[in-house]
């Protein structure tokens, strides 16, 4: 976007708020997003917090950012590069500058460009003056001063006044993109219900920013981004991936008529799932903050043994710690959901950054042959749907199922059409209440011929007293067995259980055969789709096959792969899905690996796909 002509209508815009951790950028971004969504835009967001610890004010590691793409068209990513950057201090400018395209607009809080702040940001001279920003349209305003001025009548301390400056900046942006103030005004009234002075101060700051932009001529024009027309009718809200996941899990348990048990140990970026679920207690959700990840998963397996819809959630390092116990769940054939909100590794890695490098870990990271189901939502909202799907699969086949999301999905948000709970089908549970063997005895490992599920005989059921454990089992009876043939049979049976899962065919976007097939999975969906669309519009033959089910693969995958001359697999890892596809289907798929700790940019995908197409 350039701000050349006045009154222009845009079909999509990307903006980024950036400031110090204490500057309230996440709040500002969220408000902009909600308002945009409420006026009918499609939106997608990408919050980018600093590393775990709050750095001292003004430093580079302390910078917090929030990017939003909003539009009247289908918005699938938070945007590659911002049209507008709001930079609340020099550090925020410095950290974000390299992401800006030439001609982008930068709104800076001039007040913060003090000598000491410049130094903290590592600027030798003032970038507002030394020509650093000549490629951009810079709008510098003394936002702090203006905010103080607007609030001079309000009886709160000056620290509290200064903390309102983000709302001033938000007001400016609301004017620039012609957004109503009411949703934010209302939200503020609720949030500070108990502190009326703060409500007033924030209201004034927001309005002041809006009016300031309106009356001064700092921007030559403002923009309209009309409501999107592709969104189905209905009631919407914003939802982030972790919250959608929590809602999905609770829904699944309700639909199965089971209590939900969620055992977890806090870890970035998965903790919010625990936080959300701990607010669902009225729907029989039992959250357990365990002493560590091993206790979390084991408690969940204990709950599964007891007949709960058992879930455990964590991020990659936590999955490593849970591996041994997940192997037990495989062996005892109990339903279990393991949520892995991936983050950048190896080891502690870059814990606040996103990545997809745990796929092979969840596939193979256990001793012995211990197959689990694996599903991967493509968008924040889909975390809801696939959480339900994962529960259905786990309960139907009596197996552990992984849900693989990532930091990008977890914290990203999108408009979510509220489902009608009545439309969501019930989930059948394999409880058994009477002996299924000779003389009414329990055959605990009598497998259903279709699903290969074993019966779920939970403690409390008279007459079905039995013992299970991690030692190999005789098929049918479930007693301990060291028999060679039986072991081979059981290993294959456990693998077959996963193969038997009924999962929908993979969605194909684009022609059903042709030049180039892009196989993607998880949170890269939006970027991959947008890139492919762009290329198709440019006349290229390119199709996307996005996988939401990875173990088992959808049945149509093999045939699909064989219908294209080339196959490329873009992933935020060093080629993990690609390896699985090559091994399984003997298709010479090309890997496009990226481990930057952040989502794909549409542009880099377009470039890579074009290159492969023209090779």
């Amino acid at each position, binding site marked *: 976007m350039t701000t050349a002509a006045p009154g222009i209508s845009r079909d999509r815009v990307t903006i980024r708020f950036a400031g110090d951790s204490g500057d309230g950028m996440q709040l500002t971004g969220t408000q902009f997003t909600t308002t945009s969504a409420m006026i009918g835009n499609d939106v997608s967001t990408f919050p980018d917090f600093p590393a775990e610890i709050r750095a001292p004010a003004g430093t580079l590691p302390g910078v917090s950012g929030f990017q939003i793409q909003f539009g009247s068209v289908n918005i699938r990513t938070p945007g590659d590069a911002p049209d507008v950057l709001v930079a609340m201090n020099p550090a925020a400018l410095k950290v974000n500058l390299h992401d800006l395209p030439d001609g982008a607009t930068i709104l800076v809080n001039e007040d913060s460009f003090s000598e000491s702040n410049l130094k903290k940001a590592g600027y030798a001279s003032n970038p507002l003056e030394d020509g650093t920003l000549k490629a951009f349209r810079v709008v510098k305003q003394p936002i702090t001063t203006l905010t103080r001025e607007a609030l001079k009548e309000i009886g709160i301390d000056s620290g509290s006044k200064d903390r309102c400056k983000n709302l001033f900046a938000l007001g400016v942006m609301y004017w620039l993109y012609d957004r109503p103030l009411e949703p934010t005004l209302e939200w503020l009234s609720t949030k500070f219900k108990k502190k009326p002075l703060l409500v007033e101060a924030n209201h004034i700051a927001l309005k002041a920013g809006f009016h300031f932009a309106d009356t001064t001529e700092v921007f030559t024009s403002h923009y309209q981004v009309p409501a999107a027309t592709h969104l189905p009718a209905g009631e919407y809200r914003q939802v982030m991936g972790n919250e959608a996941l929590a809602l999905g899990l609770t829904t699944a348990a309700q639909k199965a008529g089971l209590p939900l*048990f969620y055992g977890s140990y806090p870890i970035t970026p998965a903790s919010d799932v625990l936080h959300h679920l701990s607010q669902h207690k009225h729907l029989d959700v039992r959250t357990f903050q365990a002493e560590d990840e091993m206790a979390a998963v084991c408690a969940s397996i204990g709950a599964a043994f007891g007949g709960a819809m058992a879930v455990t959630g964590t991020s990659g390092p936590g999955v490593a710690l849970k591996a041994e*116990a997940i192997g037990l769940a495989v062996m005892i054939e109990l339903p279990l959901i393991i949520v892995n909100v991936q983050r950048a590794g190896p080891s502690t890695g870059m814990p606040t950054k996103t990545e997809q490098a745990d796929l092979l870990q969840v596939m193979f990271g256990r001793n012995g042959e211990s197959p689990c189901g694996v599903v991967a939502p493509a968008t924040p909202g889909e975390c809801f749907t696939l959480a339900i799907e994962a529960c259905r699969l786990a309960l139907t086949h009596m197996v552990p199922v992984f849900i693989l999301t990532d930091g990008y999905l977890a914290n990203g948000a999108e408009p979510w059409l509220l489902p009608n709970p009545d439309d969501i089908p019930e989930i059948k549970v394999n409880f058994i209440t009477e002996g299924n063997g000779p003389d009414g005895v329990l055959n605990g490992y009598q497998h259903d011929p279709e699903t290969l599920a074993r019966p779920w005989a939970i403690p409390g059921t008279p007459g079905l007293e039995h013992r*299970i454990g991690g030692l190999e089992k005789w098929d049918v009876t479930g007693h301990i067995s060291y028999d060679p043939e039986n072991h081979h049979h059981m290993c294959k049976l456990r693998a077959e259980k996963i193969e038997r899962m009924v999962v929908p065919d993979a969605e194909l976007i684009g022609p059903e055969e042709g030049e180039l097939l892009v196989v993607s999975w998880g949170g890269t969906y939006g970027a991959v789709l947008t890139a492919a669309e762009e290329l198709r519009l440019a006349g290229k033959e390119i199709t996307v096959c996005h996988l939401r089910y990875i173990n088992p693969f959808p049945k149509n995958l093999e045939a699909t792969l064989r219908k294209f001359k080339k196959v490329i697999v873009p992933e935020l890892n060093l080629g993990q899905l690609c390896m699985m596809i090559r091994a399984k289907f003997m298709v010479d798929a090309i890997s496009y690996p990226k481990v930057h700790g952040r989502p794909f940019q549409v542009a880099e995908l377009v470039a890579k796909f074009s290159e492969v197409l023209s090779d």
Partner: protein
Amino acid sequence: MTSAVVQLKKKDFVSDQDVRWCPGCGDYAILNAMQRIMPELGVPKEKIVFVSGIGCSSRFPYYMNTYGFHTIHGRAPAFATGLKCTNPDLTVWLVTGDGDGLSIGGNHLLHVIRRNVDINILLFNNKIYGLTKGQYSPTSEVGTVTKSTPLGSLDRPLNPLRFALASEATFVARTYDTDLKHMQQVFKAAAAHKGVSFVEILQNCPIFNDGCWTENLAKKVRKDKVLFLEHGKPMVYGADKNRGLKLDGLALEKTSWEGDETPADVFVHDSTVESSVLATLLTEFTDPIPVGIFREVQAQPYDEALINQLDVAKDKSKGQGLAELYRQGANTWTVE
């Protein structure tokens, strides 16, 4: 199908599995004691679950004709916690060993105890890793020579009861494998306690650590080397009941007397004091070794408190369901 509780007998609790401990293993007697008290608890078989980790001791569930879960090494407390949170109605027994419970599983044991989950924990202490064929354990004395410590072990041993007390255990007791009656008493008291019960059982492993408790428990010396704790009773022991413990500053000292009358200064055991100091003091004794109930205080179990929270939340929510949940804390808008 319902089960008639009243008529249950010991044999109803014997499973169809062959018992696979070594001949002479102390675990047999413990199993026997447990199967004997089962009918007396008045709990139907299907409501009883034995959970264990890995170790010789952890084979226990296979031999009980109840529900059983032989989990993985050291983690039984976590499984039991999840199970109780799902169904607090169940009577859950947790069987662990000195290795399973205090080595790999120390952390989970600590936390299940401090949470006061309403389960009964039995720690079989044979001061050795039996199942892996004889390495020293966290309760082995310094200098123990085993396969992994040919020159003697270097680590100072843990005292399981002191560990349990520091973990804020509400019920702490000790018994031993060769006293069937005492075991039964202690097990029944543990079962009766609401909240976590922690019981150390001194157990012999004739194969890898034979005689590990004979210093106190050998038939010949037992009377003089074991102190049977009874709430409200003076701490008297000895074949002739003429020895005892009395307070001296912050210590308990041994004392003895002639004649039948127990002197007034012999300390009277009180297992119900809130402070864990007396119990801690008793754990420091090895001659005589105290057995019986060290501590027994009341506190709300975790699982009960959890269910209470659910109930309160349900009440407050006034029947709100999924539809309301989807809107909870969010702004919504409508696309026409």
